[in-house]
């Protein structure tokens, strides 16, 4: 009895604190969504409104129409998707094999190589900005998605490798030994045993590399100059140029940009979570 009453106070405190945190996270999202349904006049009005007085899709219609050098917003989202999906595939696939090698194979310089990857991961990519630009110019891959995807690997491969490496380390090597005795070659043992067990790690690495590439602005802005290659982040930024900012369009764009990330999170959720290797050993 005493225990219940004691934890009652604690529970109220916990719930109160969590509501506060939840509210401070949810409110900006709520504000973004309602603003996108307001006409600009309502936004600039003296007293803010907490729900749209006259909900309208004007902002979205305007976004979808090309304006100046800005492509229709869906098209820019398509560009972002190409860059993000391409870059995620490259990062995660290379990351899987690199992480496998680093955790399972013995070779000279393995430790040094691991350290190097961590170094690359923490090294600020922006410092490589100018050399990359010059290199891409020399290679003639400026203004190509290929170039942008390659530039995203500066972050993507080290990140995916590092994340998967720590995940692979939790999968007992004896499982692969066992698979090899059961009749797998090395590649089959990876496909049938290591990858299914690494699914949570792979899902997490996918989400994070995708989100990072999807949200990336600077490289996309500089490496892709042609309007038809503009990504959504760059398009959003271009909405800020002008005398009066169309906040409803900016917020509408933000809503659209967050959708794929939200969808991906929910899709990957069931793979994330631990306990997949429970019962394997001992």
């Amino acid at each position, binding site marked *: 009895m005493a225990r219940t009453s004691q934890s009652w106070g604690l529970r109220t405190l916990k719930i109160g604190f969590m509501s506060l945190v939840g509210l401070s996270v949810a409110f900006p999202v709520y504000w973004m969504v309602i603003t996108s349904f307001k006409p600009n006049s309502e936004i600039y009005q003296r007293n803010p409104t907490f729900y749209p007085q006259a909900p309208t899709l004007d902002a979205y219609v305007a976004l979808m129409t090309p304006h100046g050098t800005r492509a229709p917003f869906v098209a820019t989202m398509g560009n972002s998707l190409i860059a993000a999906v391409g870059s995620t595939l490259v990062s995660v696939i290379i990351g899987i094999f690199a992480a496998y090698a680093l955790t399972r194979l013995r070779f000279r310089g393995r430790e040094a190589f691991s350290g190097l990857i961590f170094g690359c991961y923490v090294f600020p990519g922006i410092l490589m900005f100018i050399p990359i630009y010059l290199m891409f110019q020399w290679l003639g891959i400026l203004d190509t998605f290929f170039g942008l995807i390659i530039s995203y690997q500066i972050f993507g491969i080290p990140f995916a490798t590092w994340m998967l490496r720590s995940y692979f380390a939790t999968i007992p090597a004896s499982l692969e030994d066992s698979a090899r*005795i059961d009749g797998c070659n090395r590649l089959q043992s990876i496909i049938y045993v290591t990858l299914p067990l690494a699914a949570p790690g792979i899902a997490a690495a996918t989400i994070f590399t995708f989100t990072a590439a999807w949200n990336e602005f600077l490289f996309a802005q500089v490496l892709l100059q042609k309007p038809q290659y503009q990504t959504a982040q760059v398009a959003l930024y271009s909405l800020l140029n002008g005398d009066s900012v169309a906040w409803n369009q900016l917020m509408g764009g933000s809503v659209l940009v967050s959708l794929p990330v939200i969808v991906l999170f929910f899709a990957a959720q069931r793979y994330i979570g631990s306990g997949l290797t429970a019962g394997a*050993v001992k």
Partner: protein
Amino acid sequence: MAAIEIRNVQKSYGNLQVIDGLSLDIEDGQFVALVGPSGCGKSTLLRMISGLEDITDGEISIGDRLINNVAPKDRDIAMVFQDYALYPHMTVAKNMGFALKLAGESKEAIADRVHRSAKILDLTDYLDRYPKQLSGGQRQRVAMGRAIVRDPQVFLFDEPLSNLDAKLRVQMRAEIKELHQRLATTTVFVTHDQIEAMTLADKIVVMNGGRIEQLGTPLELYDQPESLFVAGFIGSPPMNLIHGSVGFERGRAVLASDHGPVLLLPDAQTLTQGQRIVFGFRPEHLHIVADEAEGAFDCILNVIEPTGAETQVNAWFGPKLITAVFRERHDLSLRQKIWLNIDLRRTVLFDEATGLRVR
């Protein structure tokens, strides 16, 4: 089924030599136990037979086929790991059928063989469970099932029972023995439990520092250890080992033991006056005799452990404890002085410096 021939095999990791020119013949259908202290290379040898580890030098053949460069999957062997290594994302049935599936067997054939093996191991009720839903003993059994379902030429076991509790270990030991009698598949079994080795094996290989210290049947190793190492390793409770120098009294060889009384030695041709030796005798070869009988020595009882069938005692021999086991009942009490006689036909002598048997 097949014989295994290991010829002068070496293994090094970089500069570290782990297996040092080891040769061993395992006959078709034989059950061989590899025993030895931790780090002596048992697992390494087993993994070289399985192909999981490269062979640095030498040759290994299974059934007349040189397998140095054959992939593990093509060696027709099955292995049970110390940690079982069950696939956690597959049910028991899938775990057991995995090798058959990879070998391209039909669904019906796989189901049939899995069921037959499951029946042998009493796993029929668990086929749809995942490894995490099983107890330790059941997991161990699945690991065994995964091996026998393939009907391989050779079974390799790396300490398969060491994660089980004592009771289950004894039970599984009996099951493994029965299984071997039934299937008669050539088996190499790594353990550092010498009781397991003694009870299961046709032949025991005692390894030490990457070499074979001695090999033989369990009783050969027990009765005729060729070195101090084997003498100390095989047998539980272990053999009593008394250090001292050889002397001669009235034409008979005696041991002036370092800390205790003078002991009569068995007749040996090669002993010389003052030679440093170690005198070994098993606990069950000590007998209580009347006071100061010919050749008897005295010691003080320290611990008495009756188990019903026999009584094990620890007694002070000078400052050293020796162990004795009596099958007969004696009226014993703590700190009592008893007189013991050694059955000299069953003792062994070792050179103190080399640790090798002196005859």
